[in-house]
């Protein structure tokens, strides 16, 4: 899997200003960072177009609208990253499923905790809602020191699809998941830095 260290590819990247840096980091067409950044930016443009700020008001939108837009952006970030990774990883598959179901959930299962907004569900947070309950395969022998380790259970909740993974797979998926989250944060920050505030 190609690593996504833009500073490695372009040593002068730290001396560039943010917009150029963002573009310079996209020199490798197939890098995960680039694929994520492009998807995310396209979705941002879509979000921007569908919620145009009213020209006359001083505060551009109600807090409600801002919150909704924030949720859409957050959801777009996770969705873009999961799609950029694709089906190569168990966590990205699980995340894409979770996001897909979390949109339909508002229509089909009103009995499940409805959001106050009634719009698309929030982007999956750490624990998220478990849509599919899969029996966990305990791949380790009895008496293993990992058996009662609560850190593992918590990690299973944090990593998408972690509930049904064996420990070895879980640790691998976690490593990849963490790297991708870092990339996601880095790209989002670069985009935000493009705009002087």
């Amino acid at each position, binding site marked *: 899997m190609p690593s996504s260290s833009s500073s490695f590819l372009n040593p002068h990247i730290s001396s560039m200003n943010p*917009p150029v840096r*963002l*573009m310079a980091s996209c020199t490798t067409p197939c890098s995960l960072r680039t694929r994520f*950044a*492009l998807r995310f*930016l*396209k979705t*941002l*443009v879509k*979000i*921007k177009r569908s*919620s145009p*700020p009213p020209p006359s008001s001083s505060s*551009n*939108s109600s807090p409600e609208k*801002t919150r909704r*837009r*924030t*949720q859409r*952006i*957050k959801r777009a*970030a*996770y969705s873009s990253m999961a799609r950029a990774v694709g089906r190569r990883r168990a966590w990205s598959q699980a995340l894409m499923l979770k996001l897909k179901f979390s949109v339909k959930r508002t229509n089909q299962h009103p009995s499940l905790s409805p959001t106050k907004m009634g719009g698309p569900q929030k982007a999956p*947070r*750490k624990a998220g809602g478990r849509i599919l309950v899969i029996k966990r*395969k305990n*791949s*380790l022998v009895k008496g*293993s*020191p*990992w058996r009662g*380790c609560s*850190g*593992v259970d*918590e*990690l299973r909740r*944090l*990593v998408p699809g972690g509930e049904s*993974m*064996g*420990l*070895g*797979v879980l*640790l*691998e998926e*976690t*490593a990849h*998941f*963490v*790297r991708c*989250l*870092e990339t*996601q*944060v880095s790209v*989002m*920050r670069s985009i*935000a830095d*493009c*705009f002087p*505030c």
Partner: protein
Amino acid sequence: MSSRRSHSRQSGSSRITEDQIADLVSKLQRLIPELRNRHSDKVSASKVLQETCNYIRSLHKEVDDLSERLSELLASLETDSDQAAIIRSLLM
């Protein structure tokens, strides 16, 4: 990295050894900023897992904050500004 672990599925009986687990845990430890500098023998596996969970949560929080920031920026963005031109050129 480690060719010991093949990429075949972990279905059914998976005889993953403690060594392989320790290997994966140390790989994870190198990713976590807090634990990166410490020697691996001084950091217990449960500490690595704990710090990993904390790190993931902090990354989620950063995503939240950045989403909010981007939301405000999108609201205030003029359609014909330089920034919009940069974004557009990126997407071409």
